[in-house]
Every structure is written in C-alpha cells, then in structure tokens.
C-alpha cells in the first residue's frame, strides 16, 4: 500500500520550531554576533573581526581545557560502558529481584547534578566525609582540594557512580529484547559464555550501546555543575573542564567576545562528534534492518 504524502503535517511542528527558536536559535545567533565584537558594557559594541577567534585558537588555556575535557570524557566512557554492560549481564532477568535492581539502579539518575556534587564534596572531605576520613585513617594521602590526582579520581568516581546506571539500564533493555531462540541455538552448538556474549549479546546490544555512548559522551563533554561544586576547577586549574573555563571567562572576567568565540568552537566540536555518532547509529540500524 502506498503511503500518502502530506506536507501539511509540517505545520504541526511549528510550535516546536518557535520554542527552539527562542531557546536555542536566537541565543546562538547572539553568541555569533558577540564573537565578532568587543563590549565594555552599556550594550555598546565595537567591531573586532576575527580577533577573538584568533586569540582563542592561540590560547594555551583553551587547548589545555580541551585536553582535560577529552581526557575526562575518554576515561569515564572507558569505565562506564564496560561496567554498565557487566552490571546488565549480571542482573536478574525477571521476577522481584529484577524490578528491585532496576529501581535501585535508577536512584542515582534521579538526583540533581548540584546535589550529587554536594554529596561527593562532603563524602570526600578528610575532616567529616566518610570516604576522605577513612582513606586518611588508613594512611592514604587523599585530599581533593590540594592533590590533582585525588581531585581527578573524585570527579571520575562521582561521574561513574552517577551515570553507570544509565548505561546498565540501556544495556539491560538491549539484552531483554534478545529472543530465547538465540540462546537455545547457542546451547545446541555448545557455544562458550564468551562466544554467546561476543556473537549474540554484543551485536544485539550495539544499537542501545551506541545511544549510551552518545548520551554519555555529550553529557560528559558539557559537564559543569558536579565538578564545579566538588573542586571548583582546582587545585589550580587541574580540573577546569571546558564549560568551567567558559563560565569563568564569560561571567567571571566578563570577556564576552572571547567567550563567545570559545563557545562557538566548543559547539562545533560537539556538533561534529554528535554527527559522527548519529551517522554511525543510523547506518547500524539500516544494516540491521
């Protein structure tokens, strides 16, 4: 049966377009306008041309922040994705304990970002925090306000605690969608546990895992609140990730022009990586379909 093509349905999208225009397109246009001008307040602007872009491209500060950001996203993806899959594989597949695990896993996802930051900020303190105090008691030199390694470990463990559940829940949904016949066939063929994972479970989970990687990458690449609450970007600048640096520049120093150029480049990197992920995902779907 032929589908009816009716372009009038596009009018139904108009309210969303209007909303997106006000929440995203108009602010983005303003940022583009700011990135080519200089201001000293009073809504007075002076043409600066490509100066801010050039300054940002030659700024060691921005490249360092980008390096830290890529390292942060890389580390949390390398931990959360395998750990999420491992958790999903070991969760009960049905019954009371399955529901119990699902609810338990969802709890960290329901906690607001700033509360997560506050929890870990207190948890890691060596005077009153359970983690910091315990580590200090057993003789481990842990102080996230003074030691860069301790600060990094804290923000990474915090992110893993907060978001591994999301990966596990998505992987679990992928696992649940595999028909029993696949496992029965594998059993007849006497496939090992590893082979069942490698040739049945992993390919069937690939779609949802790509979504998990995309979501976690995007979210971690734009992360602000949690590390800001815990370390404030310190000690020194060691945990100053891109968004923390951007806010310091735009609101702390009120350098609107350089900050606008910085945020446009930040936006382009996110757009590029999201496009790559999206393309890989849709092509995987088509190949499976």
């Amino acid at each position, binding site marked *: 049966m032929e589908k009816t093509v009716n372009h009038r349905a596009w009018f139904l999208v108009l309210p969303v377009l209007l909303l997106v225009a006000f929440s995203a397109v108009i602010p983005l246009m*303003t940022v583009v*306008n700011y990135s080519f001008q200089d*201001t000293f307040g009073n*809504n007075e602007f002076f043409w600066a041309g490509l100066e801010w872009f050039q300054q940002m491209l*030659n700024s060691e500060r921005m490249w360092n922040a980008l390096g830290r950001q890529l390292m942060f996203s890389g580390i949390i993806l390398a931990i959360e994705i395998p750990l999420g899959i491992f958790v999903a594989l070991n969760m009960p597949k049905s019954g009371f304990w399955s529901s119990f695990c699902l609810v338990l896993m969802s709890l960290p996802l329901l906690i607001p970002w700033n509360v997560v930051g506050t929890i870990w900020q207190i948890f890691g303190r060596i005077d009153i925090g359970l983690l910091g105090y315990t580590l200090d008691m057993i003789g481990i030199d842990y102080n996230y306000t003074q030691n860069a390694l301790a600060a990094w470990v804290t923000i990474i463990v915090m992110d893993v605690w907060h978001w591994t559940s999301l990966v596990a829940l998505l992987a679990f949904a992928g696992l649940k969608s595999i028909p029993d016949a696949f496992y029965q066939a594998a059993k007849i063929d006497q496939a090992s546990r590893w082979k069942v994972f490698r040739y049945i479970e992993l390919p069937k989970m690939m779609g949802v895992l790509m979504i998990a990687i995309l979501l976690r990458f995007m979210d971690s690449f734009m992360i602000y609140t949690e590390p800001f609450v815990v370390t404030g970007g310190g000690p020194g600048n060691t945990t100053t990730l891109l968004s923390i640096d951007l806010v310091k520049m735009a609101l702390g120093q009120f350098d609107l022009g350089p900050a606008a150029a910085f945020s446009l480049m930040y936006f*382009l990197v996110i757009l*590029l990586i999201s496009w790559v992920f999206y393309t890989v995902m849709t*092509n995987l779907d088509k190949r499976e379909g």
Partner: protein
Amino acid sequence: MEWMAWTWPTATFFMVIAALLITFSILAIKFPEAPRVGVLRIETTRGDRLFITLLGSAFINLAWLGLVGPDNQPWALAVCLVWAAAVFRWV
C-alpha cells in the same frame, strides 16, 4: 533587537544560511531524490551533503585562521567552495 548586537557581516552570514536552507527545502520537495552511498560509505541526501559542507567549512575557516592567519581569510572561502564541490560530487 538591539541586545542581539547585530552587524551587517553577521546578518549577511545568517541570511546566506537561511537562503541555503530554504533553497534545499524547496529542492527536496520539488525534486525528491533517493539517498546514495558515496566515498564515506554512508547514505546521504542533498540535505546531508549540505550539512557536511557547512560543518566542514566552519572547520576549514578555523584551521585557516589558526595556521595561516587572518590576512588571507577570504582564500579560506575558496577552499570551502572546493570542499563543497567535492562533497556534492563524491560523498
């Protein structure tokens, strides 16, 4: 609109982008096309190729500014045109 700090160059930039989007939307409605697979081994339509062109052009301009400097920036647009032609021909 004053708070948006409009200038003629940035307004022209957005008008060009808007004109491109409108043109490609009309083209997609009037002359629908089947997606094709190019050198990237992914299915693309005209709209996808426009997106790849624009995104690539942004990076070409930034790379030119960082590596060559702002004095010859218009030449970066020439590179972008070559990039656009290559994307529409082979991607």
